[in-house]
């Protein structure tokens, strides 16, 4: 049966194998004189063993099907909003980016009334900019037209 631990253990083991594969381009050194790949390889081996042990011992863990992913739509939307923010932050500037991200989250994801969403997004984007950039002097990116 596909259990949570079996999937998690297998995932960790695969990640460890990827690290081992990627480490081959770095000098390994020797036991007495470790090179830059020494620690990553040692740790990846440890993770591989740990992952396999978790998978092997995970017979009695809860079934993978028992995991609820009811919130996946929200999670994907939030991820998309954050990814947009990361892409746009230095292109559109802080205020415009945050305004658009908040507008999306409130207006589209949470289905708030358009006026409420616009006012909240505008106030929050401008307010946090004023607090951090202007008052606390944390430099935040500006976009076109100095926004």
């Amino acid at each position, binding site marked *: 049966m596909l259990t949570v631990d079996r999937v998690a253990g297998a995932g960790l083991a695969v990640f460890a194998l990827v690290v081992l594969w990627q480490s081959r381009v770095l000098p390994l050194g020797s036991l007495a004189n470790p090179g*830059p790949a020494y620690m*990553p390889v040692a*740790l990846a081996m440890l993770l591989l063993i740990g992952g396999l042990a*978790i998978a092997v011992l995970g017979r009695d863990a809860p079934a993978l099907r028992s995991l609820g992913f*009811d919130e996946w739509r929200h999670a994907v939307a939030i991820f998309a909003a954050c990814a947009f*923010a990361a892409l746009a932050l230095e292109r559109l500037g802080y205020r415009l980016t*945050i305004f658009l*991200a*908040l507008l999306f989250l409130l207006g589209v994801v949470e289905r708030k009334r358009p006026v409420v969403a616009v006012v909240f997004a505008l106030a929050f984007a401008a307010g946090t900019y004023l607090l951090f950039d202007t008052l606390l*002097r944390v430099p935040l990116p500006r976009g076109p037209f100095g926004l």
Partner: protein
Amino acid sequence: MLETLHNLAVGFSVALSPPVLLYAFVGCVIGTLVGVLPGVGPLAGISLLLPATFGMDATRAIVMLAGIYYGAMYGGSTTSILMRIPGEAASVMTCIDGYAMARKGRAGAALAIAAVGSYVAGSASVIGLMLLAPPLAAFALRFGPPEYFALLLFGLLVLAYMSSGSMLKSLAMAALGLLLGMIGIDQMSGYFRFAYGVVELGDGLGVVPVAVGLFGLAEILATAGQAVPPKVIEPRLRELLPSRAEWRDAAAPIGRGTVLGFLVGIIPGSAHIISSFVSYALEKKLSKRPEEFGHGAVAGVAGPESANNSATSGAFVPMLALGVPSGPIPAVMLAAMMVHGVSPGPLLIRQQPELFWGFIASMYVGNLVLLILNLPLVGLFVNLLRVPYPYLYPAILTFSILGVYAVNGSVVDVWIMLAMGVLGYILRKLGFETAPIVLGVVLAPMIELALRQSLAMSDGHYAIFFQRPIAAALLAVGLGMMLLSLRSFIRRGLDWRARMALAEKGES
């Protein structure tokens, strides 16, 4: 002793200067808010507000960040008592009897006991920090790379051992964290490792994006879909005074919780959670009326709340004296100090006595501020919980992006936060603890450097770790703990970690 008192007087002259006092106050208020809000623990709170301290001098910045830390520990009890939702992980045990007291109409008394217990524990444990940190720092001057390597490895093993749930899973998470910490330039050879042409990764993964992603964003991803906010029991101000019997019942648990919390705090691991769990178990064992636990026992609130606040000061001991973080929150504090040009470690107390003692004194002041602040203003803080989550989480998300970006002015950090958020979300779903990852990321470069320096010292002989008594002792204790956890695995019974994991899930 006289020297300590003299130093403390110097510290108070710093802590009581109006600007430092103001920042301590601001830190405590923000910390309380952070603690009250479910999902924004002290770790994410400190990480997010780090950029706001960039314009300050080191003392003010560190005093404010420490205020956020222990403010959050205070604030976490409010939601536990009034809503049965732990504002931060350490308040899990307070939920049980705190909420039961609230349902009996004793919410005010429970809040007052939690606040007074936190104040007593917070203040008393600072004395411990004050007395223990300087001699420990002096002792640590004898540490060389082998001792540091053993200490750091020991720290990770203890963290894995002390984490709730399976030690195997915690060790795997520590290994994953250490692996992520390998990203960046190798300090000994200058090789770029796993950077894939991204120059910003040369310095490695920053602790702030990793912590905010794993703790802040992952929490939002997992909980944003929940629609209906839970009910809040609102206490009246005149109910805030506990009865004489309640004070009597609370006195001894507060004392025990203080000592226990401080001792657990010094040991690496998720000190706050463990200390409150152990304190609850101890009080139940010592109680003449154990059947009251779970139904509103005063000791069930007083003990754990004192213990988790005391552990906060305890956790500062290894960080300030050795420069070694004992858990994810001290790790972020350490990073924050480094941003401000302060290097915690054996030389800090000698080279920057004003900062060290000012910090100690500010903790006394902060505890008093929190006591004054928490009780009368509890209604105000609770109102924050009435903000609907569909408005709250976009706001927290904005602070996350802003905070992470502002540390280095780099969008790459925002991407790292996003990746860590997704990783944290998945790991949460699969039942893994993510605290060892944060500590692993911070400790990885230190461990690697200490290992390679040790081998350079010994001409490549690993025996150096067993020939030096401090290193050998630390490694032996770490190995002993691993064997201990194997014992419970072989017996296939529920050991204390499994019981704690169940308590955290609210199944106790």
